[in-house]
């Protein structure tokens, strides 16, 4: 064991020297040619999978980078893998070259020194990213410090079938009252699913008179008191949930078929355009619309990051940079493709590029950026972890 440690210490600086320098973009391009990038990204959404395949064909065309989408059911799997590789001394060519990540998982990887970088702010396309208006330099309040690069903006929207639920609700309190009047017609993904945990945070952000406490880490002292209204809320809501809260959909997209089947009238999504995309793919009826709460809803950015032990860092940076290109961003925003919000500053790109964005038909169920209200900040990740754990103890085991 001791010998291994010495060996690792000897090898480590060499590996560091061999890392590509993002500021020298020509060298990055040269090195990236022919590299295979294993992008670990959640694989449960077929539209996302299709988009990633398109990205793969484009970076292969322009840069000779081969992109392989490793479909995850849970992003934490990728984090575990890198961690396990580090323990096993696999420091040079790990299985993972890039991860679609944010929030807790990013915080964990950054904390454990599992990331390559900083690289994000040296990428050529960083110059057109909207750093002023969009939360692309902090991830759930944790500074990104250039260790991850943004590629999509997400915001909580509520998805309702107007055939059964014609009117939107303006607050979480109103949602509870509606659910009590219409039992069995609403559900949310089971935490610790990303969207499910987001729902918990959204409740808390909306019902707390002052949500600013959430931007600091949760403490043993304040957690119970701050979260108490949430549990009271859920205790009232749960009996009125779909299946009386004895079962939950696994993910956000798993709720769309339930709306299509008329099992649910209302669900949530983290992608303002997803409902329109689903309508185009026959997954939702065309009576579906989206809304946000009066006080706005939580929003955040989706990032990609590169593990410290990737053997294809240059290739990964090529992909990360391409994801921030106007071409990729416009395609991602097209509801017929993905319907994700762009991270770009519309004033920083050329008129021609802007015209592509302006020409997008956002779809009947997509709110225009102006109608999405205030984007509320994500709470500190420590809240998400505690809330999800607490939820599992309260509602995730035998009731």
């Amino acid at each position, binding site marked *: 064991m001791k010998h291994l440690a010495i060996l690792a210490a000897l090898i480590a600086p060499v590996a560091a020297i061999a890392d590509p320098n993002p500021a020298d973009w020509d060298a990055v391009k040269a090195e990236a040619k022919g590299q295979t990038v294993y992008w670990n990204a959640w694989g*449960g959404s077929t539209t996302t999978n299709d988009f990633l395949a398109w990205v793969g064909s484009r970076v292969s065309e322009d840069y000779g980078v081969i992109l392989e989408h490793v479909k995850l059911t849970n992003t934490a799997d990728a984090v575990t893998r890198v961690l396990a590789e580090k323990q096993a001394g696999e420091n040079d060519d790990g299985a993972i070259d890039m991860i679609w990540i944010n929030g807790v998982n990013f915080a964990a990887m950054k904390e454990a020194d599992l990331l390559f970088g900083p690289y994000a702010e040296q990428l050529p396309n960083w110059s057109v990213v909207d750093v002023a208006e969009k939360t692309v330099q902090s991830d759930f309040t944790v500074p990104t410090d250039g260790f991850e690069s943004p590629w999509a903006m997400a915001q909580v929207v509520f998805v309702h079938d107007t055939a059964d639920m014609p009117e939107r609700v303006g607050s979480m309190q109103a949602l509870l009252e509606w659910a009590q009047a219409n039992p069995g017609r609403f559900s949310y993904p089971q935490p610790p699913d990303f969207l499910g945990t987001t729902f918990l945070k959204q409740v808390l952000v909306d019902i707390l008179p002052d949500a600013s406490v959430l931007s600091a880490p949760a403490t043993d002292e304040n957690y119970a008191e701050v979260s108490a209204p949430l549990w009271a809320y859920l205790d009232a809501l749960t009996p009125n949930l779909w299946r009386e809260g*004895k079962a939950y959909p*696994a993910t956000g997209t798993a*709720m769309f078929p339930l709306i*299509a089947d008329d099992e649910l009238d209302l669900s949530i999504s983290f992608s303002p355009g997803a409902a329109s995309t689903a309508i185009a793919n026959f*997954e939702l009826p065309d009576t579906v619309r989206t809304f946000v709460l009066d006080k706005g809803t939580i929003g955040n950015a989706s990032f990609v990051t590169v593990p410290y032990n990737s053997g294809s860092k240059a290739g990964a940076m090529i992909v990360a940079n391409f994801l921030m290109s106007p071409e990729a961003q416009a395609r991602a925003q097209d509801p017929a493709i993905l319907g994700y919000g762009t991270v770009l500053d519309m004033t920083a790109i050329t008129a021609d590029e802007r015209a592509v964005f302006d020409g997008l038909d956002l779809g009947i169920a997509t709110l225009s950026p102006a109608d999405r209200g205030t984007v509320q900040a994500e709470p500190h990740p420590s809240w998400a972890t505690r809330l999800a754990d607490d939820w599992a103890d309260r509602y995730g085991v*035998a009731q």
Partner: protein
Amino acid sequence: MIGRIVTALRSKLSTDVKTRHDHKSRRVLPVLPAITLLAMLGPVIAGLYGTILPAFGHLPAAGLTGPTLSPFYDLFDWAGLPRAVMLSVGVGVGATALALTIVALLTAGWSGTPAFRFLERLLSPLLSVPHAAAAFGLAFLITPSGWLSRAVSPAITGWDRPPDLLIVQDTWGLTMMAGLVIKEVPFLLLITLAALGQADTGRSAAVAKALGYGRLTGWLKTVFPRVYAQIRLPVYVVLAYSMSVVDVAVILGPNTPPSLSVYIVRLMSDPDLAMRLQGAAAALLQLALVIGALMAWRIGEAIVTVLGHRWIMSGTRGKIDPIVGGLALTAGIVCAFLVLAGIVVLGVWSFAGYWSFPDFLPDQLSGRNWMRFGPGTVEALGETALIAAVVTLAALALTVGCLEAEYRYGLRLSSRGIWLLYLPLLVPQTAFLPGLQTLMLNIGADVGRLPVMLAHLVFVLPYVFLSLADPFRAWDVRMGVIANALGARPDRVLWKVRLPMLLRPVLTAAAVGFSVSVGQYLATLLIGGGRVATLTTEAVALASGGDRRAIGVYGLMQTGAALILFALALIVPAIVWRNRKGLRYG
């Protein structure tokens, strides 16, 4: 342990080989049984070793050293544990008992009748339908908005929207149990049929009938004890499998909390490393549960034997036979129907445009879903087929080598040794695969296709061996004596006489092995490190997204991949031996 077995085999070999004279293949053939045992048991034992250490807090790679019991304390602190354990045990024992009961009563009441032959023909191909595909099919049928509900709505039920009923993912795991039963009934039925062929059952049943016993009661009293002795180990396999299954549990099982196996997989993939220790502890608990359940089952057997003896002594002739037989036949047909209709509904979803409740069929059918997901499935199909083909060929080579070594050198497994064959199927996957993954990482073995193949081999080998051993041994050895006397060397006898004559069983064994490999979920997921995407891992990954059109496409492809070799195993011998009457029914 493996070392002892290998040494024992070797010392046996050295004495045997001296007295024999097959110079050419002396080097390779006699060590094949040892290699086979190593391939089958090595990963299991290594994996268990890799599980035990972290379960007691020992994970040096993470700077944690044991021994400590804290992983177990953490595990027992989890509020969901009692229910997760109950699910694991309840679903496992329930599914096994139910499937065995259906099969026993079905065979008792109907074997030898046209209805039975029909059901047998219906169920045999269903054996190869992957568990995940059958589970998806079942879910698509029986959810409140499923196909069965659509078929009777709103005409009969009056439902114009689905009722809010907890059917799939129900708290007690009943749907999960059903999903297992519909897959285990074909398995146990075929195993029972094979056992029937070996026991002299026809005459016993006839005698019982002549003594005035009902068909079903007579069979149960005279034949079943002998048959059960033969199918005991496969029943244990079903029990161990049902208690620790992951993919079916993910698709059909509850989540508040999930079954123990699903919880283990979840712990093993948590970014917090401490969770791995708890996961290892849970894996050991799973192992203990399976061992405990097997022992309890064994005691149950003894009790049933006593009760059965009393029942036999009572001399009752079986007045309610027709009712019980009718129920059993109905249950058998329902099982077959649920799997078959499940595959059909997967097919309908794969072509579905918009399809709202309570429409029986989609608004429009289109090839759009296949255009979207087809290319992805083809890629996964290539990976699946490559792995399955290599693993099946390796398993066949090892199995034929072992059986041939048994024939030439008498290296036969004792009746105790048969347990070794079943061991990889009796140790819960969730107990040793995570440990194996950790170990492989520690020794720096890269993830990827080859380790996945080796992991698949652990599960494929026993099935290939068990399905080929009987026909291989049943081959008339006088054919070999004749061929030897005609001047043919042992290798020539094997290649030119024995294997051609055994073409059909060899292909059937290959088909069994192939479908087992196609259906592997956990081994592919954990050992492949996510880089190896087969149809099964892709399909289960899609389960969380709930896109039924994509699941339809993948489920159908998965089923097709598993079935194709069974079709070939029927067609190829029929074509190759079309002019050989003596082999047509072989």
